[in-house]
């Protein structure tokens, strides 16, 4: 069993996550897509750590997970805040950055 299947699996996971982020209308849905993409990264990191016999990958995966949790918490806090102010979490209408 080589490294390649793991990487391909992670690539698929990443692409699905990307698809979710690109297409979801709901801000929470987008967040879920991001979770998937980060998860794919974790798979990669752990797989590399295993095949290179270097615990650094594991540690980075650990960091990623931790930061992701923080990110999700913050992201959701922002979503709720937006909800309070704008009464919607439709990503289409969140265009304050419009030039």
């Amino acid at each position, binding site marked *: 069993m080589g490294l390649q299947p793991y990487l391909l699996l992670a690539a698929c996971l990443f692409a699905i996550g990307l698809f979710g982020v690109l*297409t979801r209308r709901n801000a929470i849905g987008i967040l879920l897509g991001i979770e998937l993409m980060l998860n794919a990264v974790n798979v990669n990191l752990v797989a590399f750590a295993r095949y290179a016999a270097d615990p650094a990958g594991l540690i980075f995966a650990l960091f990623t997970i931790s930061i992701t949790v923080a990110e999700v918490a913050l992201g959701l806090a922002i979503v709720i805040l937006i909800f309070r102010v704008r009464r919607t979490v439709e990503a289409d209408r969140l265009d*304050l950055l419009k*030039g």
Partner: protein
Amino acid sequence: MNDAGTLALAALGLPLCAFVLLAVVAPLRRAGKAAGALGIAAIGGALVAALVLWRSGQGVELAWSWLPAEGGPMATVGILVDPVAAVMLVLVALVSFLVQLYSLGYLEHETGPALGRYYAYHSLFAVSMIGLVLAGNFLQMFIFWELVGLCSYLLIGFWYDKPEAARAAVKAFWTTKVGDLGFIIGIVLLWGRAGTFTFSELFKMAGDGTLAPDGLGLVMFLIYLGAVGKSAQFPLHVWLPDAMEGPTPVSALIHAATMVAAGVYLVTRAYPLFLLTPDVLALIGWVGAFTALLAAVLGLVQADIKRVLAYSTVSQLGYMMAALGAGALGAGFFHLLTHGLFKALLFLGAGAVIHAVGTNDVWRMGRLGGAMPQTAIVFLVGTLALAGIWPLAGFFSKDAVLAGVWEGGLTVPFLMLALTVFLTAFYMFRVVFLVFFGAGRAEGHPHDPPVSMSLPLWTLAGLTVGVGGYFALRGGGQEGHGPGWIPWVSSALAVAGIVCAWVTYQKQAVSAETLARIFAPLYTAAQRKFWLDDFYGAVYRGGFLALSRLVGWVDRYLVDGLVNWASAWTLRVGDRLRRIQTGRAQDYLYGVAFGLLLVIVWSYWP
């Protein structure tokens, strides 16, 4: 530093001190009369120094570094005193002194500050003119040359509220500046050849043949152009008649006796160089003679007494130049000196008349001979001298000029000058008869001027007679060794002119209108000043102003327009590009994805 050097520096320094004091110490300047006294005292001192210097007969050359450079100074300033400079210095100081004295009376009604300004300008003029006379190199000469031009500009525009005065001042500056362009280019070119500005070195090079003559003609012609502007030679003479807008004493000093003679002085100074270029000398002779004739014709039709004198000045400057061109250096310079005396006299006399009747128009004067006999006498003396009647100064110098031109082989210019003798006598006596005798009637109660004005008049009249008498007793002019018939012919022509004027304007046997009708084309042309002023006006408006407007338009609407075009397009494109900023994070993510694809594709590109 020897004695002569000290004297020369004193002559230069005294008016300089006066000028600096008047320029810097405002209360002194505003005091008016006191400023005048200071100016007169300074120029009086300079006159004494000049006289002593002249009588001592010493020569001196001093030089100090002015533009330092690696291998010794590039240019110097200094003093060069030789007989020519010394006698010129005396003339300048003398006329300046007399005119400043005269002005005190003439301008008695001016306010204090205006009078102070007048004397500050006059002191500056004295400094500049003396500096010009004493200049030992071309550069210094040019420097003071421009400064006298500046003083001329400032003094013509002394009554600057008068639009005519303002226009005349600017016109004078621009016209002489055209000549000065030639002068400065000439100096630069000469430096390019010889590597020096100093007269003595240049003359030495001219003498031993180290100065290559080929191409020198252009250089000397350019330098001569400076003289054309300053000495009002055709075709740059147009400024001088207009310069009469200035106060009359200014006309006497600057535009008759001294500054306008600077061109003649320049040619005299640089004569060894001009001798290397006979073509240029011949041109100088021809232009001089033509100027003399042209100005005499123009002088015939003027109604303004000062303008008649101005054209007469142009005409006489033409005489001097013609003499120089013909090789009669001494005659030309001699005429410069005598003309300086009697033309200043004429102007100051005219000033006295104007002061008395309050107008310049000869047709509004008349029978003033009875009301102001002193003025009439001195004016008559000046007129006779100008007409060239024996035994006055003008006779000898004019005679010498005519002889010199004849000897120089310039036959046609000689004929022109001879004709001018007749015309000169005619137009001058036209003025005399109209103003002092004649049928007209002046308004008011004219009277002779106060003593501060009449003293200079009598001094100049005395000198005119004295110089003439000196030569009459000694017999003949300085070097007028022409054929013996010349004095007779010129005298006959002058007398004929006087008689014609008497017949026309005193007896009125021939009406002036008839004469005008006979010479109708010429009369019209002279009235229009031979269209030269119109031509220059057209060049100024149609050439310079139109070109400048074109360039200004191009700069604003094309050169800068292109910049604005680029700027406006940047703004527009930016406005379009702005729309890709939808503000939706997902759209940006598409960008990120494309970027990722790009990186991957690029890393696999062969």
